[in-house]
Every structure is written in C-alpha cells, then in structure tokens.
C-alpha cells in the first residue's frame, strides 16, 4: 500500500502495526514475533544496566533494523519521565519517546496533569513525543496542542486485553485529531485491532497481546493482518447498518 503510508513527525512507515517488546520471556520468540508483525518501530524501556550486561534486545533490534521508540514506563511524575527521556536520547541516539506517566500500579492509567506537563517540557527540548494517554478527547487535544507528534489513547488499561471499551471516545478523538492517532493498550485479539482502524485510528501499538499469547509468532501475524484489514475497510467505506433485511439476490419470478 505505498499510497497509504503512515507519517509521524515527517517519517514514513509502511506498517501501521507498532509492536512493543514487552512481555516476552525469550529473545528468539520475540524475534520471530517482531518479524511476523512487520513492525518498523518498537518500544523499549530504560532500566539499570546489570553487571552482567543487559538483555541483548538492542542488538536484536539493530539486526532487524527496527526503529527504537524508548518509553518512560514506570515513571510516576513528569520529572521522572523527563529524566528518563533524556537518558534514552543519550543512550539510544533518538529524540523519539513514548511518554508514559502512570498514576498507580493497579490501573497503570496515565496521570493527566503530569503527562501533559512532561509532554510540554519534552517538546520544548526538541523531542518527538508520542504520549500514552487515556481515551479522554480533551486530554488528547491538549497533548496535540502541546506539540506531540501523535496521540496514543488506550482502548482499555495496559495488559487487560479488554479491547476498546469506549469506541465513542476514540471516534471523538479521531474526529478532532490533527496528528496521527495510535490506539495503544488494551488490545486483546485481532478483531480489536481491526476495530481500532475502522474507528479511524492511524495505527495500533500493542505488546503483550502478542508476546503473552500462546503462540506469539502466529498472533503477531494475526495482528498484522487485522490492522491491514481494518485500515482497508475504513478506506473502502462500509455499507450502512439497517434494521430490516436487504436481499443480495434478484427477486425470484417463479
């Protein structure tokens, strides 16, 4: 679909599925899943280097030539997130960041105030900020107005697999978006991903729906196909919903 590129911050992506690296216990399983997903960008977290020397995920991603999107997972304040973003830029040589500032461990939902605060700071420092946000159309708009290069509303809380709990909010966000909308978090299965695209999202970001599936590589292929299918359906223009039936064969004469 070269005529249907996703463009974020001026960079073109052929794939509208962004698969994160979280939740995989095994690098070779992760590698097969990443390849099957067709993702061109993936998330990594920043953590203390162990004396034993890291996880090897960076080598893997360099080999697969997948763009890094460091996140600020686990940060609970704007200050923590900003420092983490700066360290990621220093360590990985990218000014793209998936901005996460969560309010508590039970819901892992974003703290609206800290998130917006961090976004404004990082935009001012020249970062390309992709914020993980809730599905509040107002906060999504504030983040967009703050200069974020995309907004990434959740479908449901991280790791719940509950899919898109509130399609109406996603439609409201899409209706007023001037930057790409990436459905992030909550995807449980392929139809959730297809629905996200049909609602008008520009891409889908997921990790554990694939990495914690019984067969990660196969689920990655499923998500890839579903995102493509949902995108195509959005562009193709679905038939209207009707209350009464409508025949698909000509009337019978005899």
């Amino acid at each position, binding site marked *: 679909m070269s005529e249907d590129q996703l463009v974020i911050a001026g960079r073109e992506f052929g794939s509208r599925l962004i698969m994160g690296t979280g939740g995989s216990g095994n690098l070779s399983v992760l590698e097969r899943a990443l390849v099957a997903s067709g993702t061109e960008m993936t998330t990594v977290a920043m953590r203390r*280097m162990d004396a034993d020397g890291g996880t090897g995920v960076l080598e893997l991603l360099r080999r697969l030539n997948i763009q890094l999107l460091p996140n600020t997972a686990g940060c609970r304040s704007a200050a923590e997130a900003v420092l983490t973003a700066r360290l990621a830029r220093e*360590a990985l040589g990218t000014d793209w960041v998936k901005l996460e500032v969560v309010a508590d461990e039970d819901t892992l939902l974003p703290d609206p105030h800290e998130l917006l605060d961090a976004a404004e700071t990082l935009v001012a420092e020249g970062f390309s900020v992709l914020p993980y946000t809730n599905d509040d159309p107002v906060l999504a708009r504030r983040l967009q107005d703050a200069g974020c290069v995309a907004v990434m509303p959740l479908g449901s809380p991280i790791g719940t697999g509950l899919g898109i709990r509130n399609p109406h909010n996603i439609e409201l966000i899409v209706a007023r978006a001037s930057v790409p909308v990436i459905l992030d978090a909550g995807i449980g299965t392929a139809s959730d991903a297809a629905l996200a695209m049909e609602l008008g999202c520009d891409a889908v970001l997921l990790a554990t729906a694939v990495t914690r599936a019984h067969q990660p590589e196969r689920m990655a292929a499923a998500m890839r196909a579903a995102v493509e299918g949902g995108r195509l359906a959005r562009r193709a223009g679905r038939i209207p919903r009707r209350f009464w039936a409508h025949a698909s064969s000509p009337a019978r004469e005899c």
Partner: protein
Amino acid sequence: MRIRLNGKENTLAPGSTVADALALLGAPESGVAVAVDGDVVPRSQWHTALRDGAVVEVLTAVQGG
C-alpha cells in the same frame, strides 16, 4: 572514595571519573546513558571526575511495552 552505583555502594580511587564507574559495571560502548545526582551526563563529559558520595545511575534499553 565512595559512590552509589545503580543502587549499590562502591569504592573508587580518588579522582575517578564517570567512565571509571561505567568500567566497574562493564558497560558497553553504546546503548547506555548515565545520570549523576539526577542529571544526565553526556558521553562527552564521561571524563569528568565524580564527587565523593555521588549517586550514579547507568541505564540501558530493555524489553518494554
């Protein structure tokens, strides 16, 4: 002198630098970043000496969603 390196107490020779701290962890050339006392220390400044009692965080990328 003593520093706190990724949460553990360590003893270094006086005048040790950020680079020395990294060596202590066996940190690779690339893919890591350092914060000293809560501020990022760019690679270009790794030759600077650490103060006694400095809190040094060395981070790298790991799997994450």
